[in-house]
């Protein structure tokens, strides 16, 4: 695709693409995922109640995306397809987050190196095990880099500051209300405060029998934030 007469070094090309993707992602609002006593909670700053950033992929797996909506939604649907098809052809228990995260990494890495425009998204694949040791949180960057997170993570704009706040507040075995409050405070920072309408929250709940994904409605989030 290079224009005749110009030479751009591979290092420069990668650097430019990465800068472009990071700028796009930084413009959007962030998302936090963290473990709590009953599973994993995902909280995103999202003023829309119909264009979701957090969704169900499979029985014990959730998806989170930040950045360009159409791009991460395309990835979300690919994940649902992969999971449903794998569960149908093999068995429901053969569907796992690690395999999904690797597939996502392949696609995003491929697009980053081979397409004109990299994806301006960061995504998250979370899975709850049958006991807390089986919980998994994978964070996948715009270039296909996969990070295996242990207890909590943050995606999207203002990432460093939000992660810093989570480092200070997260402790093991918090209850659901405490973690939602913590996530909201981490997303807002000290200068702002967020209301339920600004947030989208969902959990993977270990006590649910098969489909563990559940959204927390605005009413419940309001009750938590005002407590």
């Amino acid at each position: 695709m290079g224009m005749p007469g110009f030479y751009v070094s591979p290092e420069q090309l990668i650097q430019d693409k990465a800068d472009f993707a990071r700028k796009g992602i930084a413009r959007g609002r962030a998302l936090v995922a963290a473990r709590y006593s009953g599973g994993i909670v995902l909280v995103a700053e999202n003023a829309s109640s119909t264009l979701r950033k957090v969704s169900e992929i499979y029985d014990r797996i959730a998806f989170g995306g930040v950045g360009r909506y159409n791009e991460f939604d395309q990835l979300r649907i690919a994940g649902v397809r992969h999971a449903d098809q794998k569960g149908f052809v093999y068995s429901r228990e053969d569907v796992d987050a690690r395999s999904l995260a690797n597939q996502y990494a392949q696609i995003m890495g491929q697009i980053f190196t081979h397409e004109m425009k990299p994806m301006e998204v960061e995504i998250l694949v979370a899975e709850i095990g049958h006991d807390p040791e089986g919980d998994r949180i994978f964070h996948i960057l715009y270039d296909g880099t996969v990070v295996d997170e242990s207890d909590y993570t943050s995606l999207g704009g203002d990432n460093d500051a939000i992660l810093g706040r989570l480092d200070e507040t997260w402790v093991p075995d918090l209850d659901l209300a405490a973690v939602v409050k913590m996530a909201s405070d981490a997303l807002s920072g000290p200068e702002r405060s967020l209301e339920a309408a600004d947030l989208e929250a969902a959990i993977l709940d270990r006590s649910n029998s098969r489909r563990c994904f559940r959204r927390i409605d605005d009413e419940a989030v309001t009750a938590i934030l005002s407590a």
Partner: protein
Amino acid sequence: MSMPFFTPGNDPGPDFVRLLERTGHSVSSELPGHIDAGHATTVLAVRYGEGVIMAGDRRATSGNFISHRTIEKVFAADRHSGVAIAGAAGPAVEMVKIFQVQLEHYEKVEGQQLSLEGKANQLSGMVRSNLPAAMQGLAVIPIFAGYDVRRGIGRLFQFDVTGGRYEERDHASSGSGSLHASTVVKLGFREGMDAEEAVSLALQALWHAADEDSATGGPDPIRGIYPVVAAITADGFARLEDSAVASAFASITADLTSETN
């Protein structure tokens, strides 16, 4: 297995069966020759005050043989609907499995559930695409029932072998014993029955079907095998415990024996 990733103009949408076809896992059913598979069963659904009761016997036959005593023919399709099957067991169970995944797949891809009528139409398409296999002796004829959360009522759908879909008002049935069962339900049906009355009516219908049709299994207290009975209401699909079905049968037995004495 690689992740299916489609360009926008080339996308199969929320349809799981089309996705399987596109990725080379097609479930098409063209077969040479004719297999004489048993079509035994009685399954039925009855509308009552809170929703729908579905019930089915547990017997699978192969000619004169009883090939299975504990097969299940009533399944949850999703949270607010159920499907019961009659016909060739293998293709029928496979159809239910695809149907269940299809409803959940649509819900996840689209972010909302299909309407109850949309679900019935999906099942209709699956029965229709099974027609070549049906011509060769492997027919599957399900009934579909659910609680319509948008309208707040229980609804029932019956099908024919070509995928024809017929909404019934009060009750639906399928299988070799369905004629006997539906007569019992027709005579005993009353508007606004409670759960206990509807379960009792469904079990009486199954008992009479088993009494007349050798391919329908009756209650088997010696082995502790009872029909599968499920209630679908605003709270969702709930299968009754075997012990509850056993005690409902005990009171039916008491009524029947006092009548014959």
